[in-house]
């Protein structure tokens, strides 16, 4: 880019024709560093100081280390592959009725989750996560603020969410969870009475479906006692970009990518949620396949 500018400068010097200078001034914004001509930046977003391609590090040693890490990950994956589905023997896959997915006992358990709030769109909610007392739970706390950011296009605000980091295999390949053996999500939580939304994201292949989400609600009690909340997967409804869709269908559990908790109950004030562990359960008594729209849509004539 800089070379092109120099070439054009040279051209204008040698040519001496004002046509070149006009061309240069026309092409100037395109050729210069795009910092001053960036596209619209949302109110809460930080200004981009360095473009992503300027962050590339050509250090040979670092790339060798990176390659070594990826190869060791690949070796682990091959060992797990030899064990059986999901890294365990088949008899475990067939017999297991409970599984603990995430439990919060140390900082690295917390690092598997990402916190976000409406600060991204310019709102004023705050959300933090830390380990609870005696390192026995994760404490997600903060303040919800429904004040709408004044950018002229946002109508609602006030949400905080915690989402699991998607699993990544060797060489940055996507890894999916296979929860097809189970039919209920099991959560041991201690809330403060506020309702939360549990979201499952299946990370589809095509980008047309990237906003698809399966959600359900988790109503917490405020008490000092821990609650065990069971949410069957048959209750999860399908929404896309926040809008509940007309065509409902059950969530397919063979390719799940992330699980998330969101609070957005339009009430200003502090919130707090302690999570001991998140697990899966195969509830033998739960026989419902899907809770919504179970009638026959196309009745045969």
């Amino acid at each position, binding site marked *: 880019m800089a070379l092109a500018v120099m070439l054009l400068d040279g051209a204008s010097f040698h040519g001496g024709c004002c046509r070149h200078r006009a061309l240069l001034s026309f092409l100037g914004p395109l050729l210069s560093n795009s910092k001053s001509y960036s596209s619209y930046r949302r109110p809460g977003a930080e200004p981009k100081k360095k473009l992503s391609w300027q962050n590339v590090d050509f250090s040979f040693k670092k790339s060798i280390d990176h390659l070594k890490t990826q190869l060791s990950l690949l070796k682990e994956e091959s060992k797990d592959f030899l064990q059986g589905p999901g890294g365990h023997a088949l008899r475990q896959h067939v017999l297991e009725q409970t599984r603990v997915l995430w439990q919060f006992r140390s900082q690295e358990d917390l690092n598997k989750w990402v916190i976000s709030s409406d600060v991204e769109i310019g709102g004023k909610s705050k959300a933090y996560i830390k380990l609870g007392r005696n390192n026995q739970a994760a404490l997600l706390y903060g303040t919800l603020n429904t004040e709408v950011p004044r950018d002229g296009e946002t109508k609602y605000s006030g949400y905080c969410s915690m989402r699991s980091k998607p699993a990544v295999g060797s060489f940055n390949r996507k890894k999916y969870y296979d929860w097809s053996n189970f039919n209920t999500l099991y959560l041991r939580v201690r809330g403060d009475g506020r309702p939360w939304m549990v979201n499952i994201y299946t990370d589809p292949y095509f980008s047309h479906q990237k906003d698809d989400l399966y959600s359900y609600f988790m109503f917490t009690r405020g008490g000092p006692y821990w609650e065990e909340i069971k949410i069957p997967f048959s209750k999860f409804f399908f929404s896309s970009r926040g809008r509940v869709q007309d065509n409902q269908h059950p969530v397919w559990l*063979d390719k799940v990518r992330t699980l998330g908790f969101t609070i957005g109950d339009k009430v200003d004030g502090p919130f707090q949620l302690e999570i001991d562990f998140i697990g899966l359960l195969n509830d033998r008594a739960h*026989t419902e396949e899907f809770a919504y729209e179970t009638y026959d849509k196309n009745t045969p004539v």
Partner: protein
Amino acid sequence: MTPQAKLIFTTSLLLGTTVTISSNHWVTAWAGLEINTLAILPLIAKSHHPRAIEAATKYFLTQATASALLLFSSMTNAWFTGQWDITQLAHPTSCLILTSAIAMKLGLVPFHFWFPEVLQGAPLITALLLSTVMKFPPMSLLLMTSPSLNPTLLTCMAIFSIALGGWMGLNQTQVRKILAFSSITHLGWMAIILSYNPKLTLLNLYLYITMTAAVFLTLNSMKTTKLSTLMTAWTKAPALSATLLLTMLSLAGLPPLTGFLPKWMIIQELTKQNMAAAATMISLLSLLSLFFYLRLAYCATITLPPHTTNHMKQWHINHPTNTSIAILTITSITLLPISPMISTII
């Protein structure tokens, strides 16, 4: 789906298959393949589940690319030789491009990545159609052009297909994906013998279709798509589970079941053609797929699960088993003793 729509799509499938099989001009062959592709798309996407739509999209993209490549190869052949006859495929570049186009259509390695996902997204009967009926037209084109195809390329693709089909099917828990990998393995067996004895490819195709149809129809009547549901399917129809065991072992190629016949003939022909090393390699690689067939057989019949089922579809009153399942199962288990007669018929 309304019966009229289903009728139109199934008739179009039959039409497309017939047009391609009976054509001797490349453009009619291509037209038949396109009719097939378009007709099966609504059948895959019938339930409008995002995964089904994803499967339909993936299927369309790969098959359209393959059709375009096929047309391109026939065009380059027409440019060099001046004619569009399918059996007169003379130019080596056209042969190479055609082989890769057909490999994409069938799901041979390295163009197999779409196959398990598409089968997983489709309902069981559509998956059956994808594995059986949709293999006919590309296979017939391969058979018609088999004298001009590059044996090295076919052998490489075949060995990798058998290897990858066996290896990747090992840890699957979804039955449709397992059957997709079984399909890739069988296609490898079909491809390796194509240049030497195309009749054995045809024999393998027919027997594979019989066995796969038996398996899919059995799974459809048990309404199972997962390994864990397969374990509790014996409660409703124990005899069906037992025949599923035998059909699975037949797919694996164990004597004295029918599935042994094509493997035996192919290994014999390869040895006669001085390809004993390839024959040994593919026999050893078939042990991988035997592992997952045995696993399916264990889950379906031999192992008793410690719990009852909570899969509601298995609680409903089941219809009496189809006659077609009975006929297909018997054919896929008991045909080995009459193999001399079969060899003369094919």
